[in-house]
């Protein structure tokens, strides 16, 4: 049977996975393309640049294809893959050893600073720009806790730090984001 492109695109995740398991690279490509944006949406929040994010995405795809045999087909593929993506991003962070525990003084949170108002829709580039200015450990802690919903205990285990450090990192990340938002986004909008 010859699969046309249209038919291939209509295949379910399970069908694609079975195709991948039978060693067909065409199915791998389709699965890759289907979840690429999703994968980037996660990884871009954990890395400084989109190029770094793509590196993590590709590493995650390699891991995913390698462990596809162990995937439980009764569970949603997306959440399983999301976990691989997050774990790979953390592994990448660990490898690079960029535990920036110090902060640049000009972006240190000011406890007396006024809380900014979000009066406009932020686009992806704005957020990526804000995240890229955060130290790695703060950015990762913020994403794991606020976006992925991990507890501080889980984050501590994942990053090999104390639970209290995770809490402190989150507080700092939020303060820094407020500060960065005030300095960058609000100023830019006034300038515009």
């Amino acid at each position: 049977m010859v699969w046309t492109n249209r038919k291939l695109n209509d295949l379910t995740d399970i069908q694609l996975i079975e195709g991948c398991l039978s060693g067909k690279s065409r199915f791998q490509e389709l699965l890759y393309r289907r979840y690429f944006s999703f994968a980037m949406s996660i990884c871009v929040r954990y890395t400084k640049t989109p190029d770094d994010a793509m590196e993590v995405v590709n590493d995650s795809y390699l891991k995913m294809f390698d462990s596809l045999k162990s995937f439980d087909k009764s569970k949603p593929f997306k959440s399983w893959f999301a976990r691989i993506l997050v774990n790979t991003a953390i592994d990448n962070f660990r490898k690079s050893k960029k535990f920036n525990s110090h902060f640049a003084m000009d972006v240190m949170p000011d406890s007396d600073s006024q809380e900014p108002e979000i009066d406009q829709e932020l686009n992806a580039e704005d957020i990526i720009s804000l995240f890229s200015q955060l130290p790695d450990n703060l950015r990762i802690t913020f994403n794991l806790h606020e976006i992925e919903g991990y507890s501080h205990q889980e984050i501590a285990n994942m990053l090999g730090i104390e639970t209290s450090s995770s809490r402190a990192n989150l507080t700092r990340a939020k303060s820094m984001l407020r500060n960065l938002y005030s300095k960058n986004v609000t100023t830019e909008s006034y300038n515009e």
Partner: protein
Amino acid sequence: MNSFDEKFTKQVKETFENYNASHMVDAGWETFRQKQSKKSKSILLIPLWAKAATITLLISLGGYLTFRIVDNTEVPVLTEEIKKVESKKAEQQKHVEDKGVTISEESKSKPNVAYRKVTPTQVAEPKEEAVITEIIPQPTKTAVDSSFSSETEAAYIAQTKTPALEEATIETDSTILENEVSKKDKPVVAETLNIPEEDEKVKRKTLVSAGLSGMMAKVETMVSASPGVAIGLYAERELTSKISIRPGLAIAKQAFNLGNFSENLTYDAPDLNGVEGEVVDMDNSFDIIAMEIPINLVFNVFERKERSLFISLGTSTMVYLSQHYTGTAYNSYTNNVYNNETELWEDNTTYIQTSLDERFGAFSHTDFFGLANISAGYNFPVGKKSSMSIEPFVQIPVSKLTSTNLTMGFGGVSVKYFLNK
């Protein structure tokens, strides 16, 4: 939580839910393909060198063991004994000459392969006959070790026996000389023929054994309901007659079904719509396949008729080939809800079941010397060239084990079959 944080988090979630990176997908796929082909090349290479290394290792080990066995049983014994016999012979000849006895050139140059029906003890006994006439030109069945080849035996016995024969033939009437010969000949023959005296050296060699172990595990405070199994190969090298060193390599498989026992496996319930969760119950199970590299010292505490009792002390390094942790967590979420009917604030509890799945790949974690091994066993012969040992053991954790840092200990029985006794 303040309004900025809430709004910002919400915006991040919304923005990235619809994030579109399709403009990068082609470049991404291309990079991925390159990465994949590089990886598959390295995967192909690893088994090749791994196989080559294994074969080389096996050949080296086999060669070494063969050399040790051959080296220990033949060469040193013969060389040493021949040297001893030569020196004894020279001594005895000198002694005979000193006594003024002339040994004819003929007798000196007599072919070495000449025997008589006289045992060493008979030589020592005083005899009335002056000359023993019966000389038999073929090797007799003396007490020479049957493992020697006929040629070696001939040369060996000839050198050993000739002086005794000459002396006995020439001066059997001399009691003094007989006594001398008796004294000197006996140890020579005993030393040369009584091979067991040298056996201790010969037996100090390397034994190879295959083992099968059944064991139970104690994880944190609970004992596993299902047993684990390990199979392995061990080499045992004697250091002294009482102490041996026994390194090995075993593959162990463990499957446990356990309750909520360890804080390391306790799952922290995530928040549900801002309400903090609490884990009320949890089931855990995990499967582990590990490569165990034990190194133990074996002390023989009692030995009798090839049977022995021993104790063994050592340590094991665990290399994990697969770790798969699964669990089901039951979380409760309680929030305060205002009841319009009763006009009271009431607790509203929701229960959610969450499945957990955590896998760690091969070689993801190694516990160096993570277990202390203590065992005692009984070794007994099985057939002529093999033996077996039954060895109850315990393995006490020295450090936290596995990727999830669990305190795990093991206890069971190991049966080992020694291939070359």
